[in-house]
């Protein structure tokens, strides 16, 4: 699957979509929706919520097509809308209540799918699922999407130190989670200092 940030749309197709051509809009939807949904699902793991955020993102994209300046690939612009929508949802009291509830009722292991990946990637996916939404978003945006700390800080309306501390915390937590099965098998208590080795 093509990454969202790499998606470029020809200017004539964009102009047609901007002018309200239904076929062009439908084609644009088909082009960007799967990659947009993929990144939203990475940041917000709740399926129904991800569907709603995809809808919000793409509606905003169509409403503001005229504002796209073409300075970066089209996918980068759509990605910034999607990320901003996801971060906004994190601030909602409904989202916080849902996360708190799910942490009581749901096993994150059950929420991940194997779909043919190797076991280390499945473990990593599970470990990622256990991070808090904000920490997971910072880790994903920095490590995978290649955002800088300053860009993340701007998106969260916080400082670069916030981004750095969230990233460090996220990495430490991931390392602990990923080594937990091995340390347990060796009889080493969880949270022992494997970081220093």
């Amino acid at each position, binding site marked *: *699957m093509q*990454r969202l940030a790499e998606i470029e749309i020809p200017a004539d197709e964009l102009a047609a979509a901007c002018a309200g051509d*239904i076929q062009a*809009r*439908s084609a644009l*939807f*088909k082009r960007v*929706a*799967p*990659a947009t*949904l*993929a990144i939203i*699902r*990475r940041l917000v793991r709740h399926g129904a919520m991800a*569907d709603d955020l*995809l*809808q*919000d993102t*793409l*509606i*905003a994209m169509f*409403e*503001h097509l005229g*504002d796209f300046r073409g300075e970066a690939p089209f996918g980068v612009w759509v990605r910034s809308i999607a990320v*901003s*929508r996801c971060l*906004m949802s994190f*601030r*909602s*009291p409904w989202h916080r209540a849902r996360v708190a509830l799910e942490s009581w009722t749901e096993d994150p292991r059950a929420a991940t*799918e194997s*779909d*043919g*990946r*190797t076991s*280390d*990637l499945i473990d*990593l*996916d599970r470990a*990622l699922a256990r991070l808090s939404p904000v920490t997971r978003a910072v*880790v*994903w945006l*920095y*490590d*995978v999407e290649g955002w800088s700390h300053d860009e993340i800080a701007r998106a969260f309306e916080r400082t670069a130190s916030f981004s750095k501390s969230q990233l460090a915390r996220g*990495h430490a937590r*991931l*390392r602990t989670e990923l080594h937990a099965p091995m340390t347990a098998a060796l009889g080493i208590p969880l949270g022992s200092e494997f*970081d*220093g*080795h």
Partner: protein
Amino acid sequence: MDTEVNDNELAARLRRLEAAGAQAVPAYDYHGMLARRAARDARVRIRSRLARGAALALVVALVGASAWRLDDHGAAPQVVRETAAPARGHEAEPRIVRADTYLAVAALEDHIASLDDALNVARAYSPRGEEVARLERTRAELLDSYAQVRYAELVSANF
């Protein structure tokens, strides 16, 4: 240094995880998206009307209850003169046990919070757009209802 190596390794594994990710298939197409949006807008409109209706009904009920209690205080001496002792005891019981504004206040606050979210988005994309103006109008109306409920609470509490 070790941590840095581990961080780089983690980042590489995260990128592999992304590359190995299955194709995400949206649950709807372009027309489905428009239909979902229309349905959601209709739900928001209904909720907004319900919240305003509930707030208005509550204001009327609270003002009515306050007036009734006021009336009751004025009429009390006559009733005492005309009725026997057991009836006086019965009259001393409160006629309104409880008129709770909690649900209406919570509904209004939730709605105002969701409007604030929507306003943030709308302002980010078009600060002087029609959508912003519409949302601000709705927010002002809800705040007005909210103020009325709070005022009614205050009036009721002082009787």
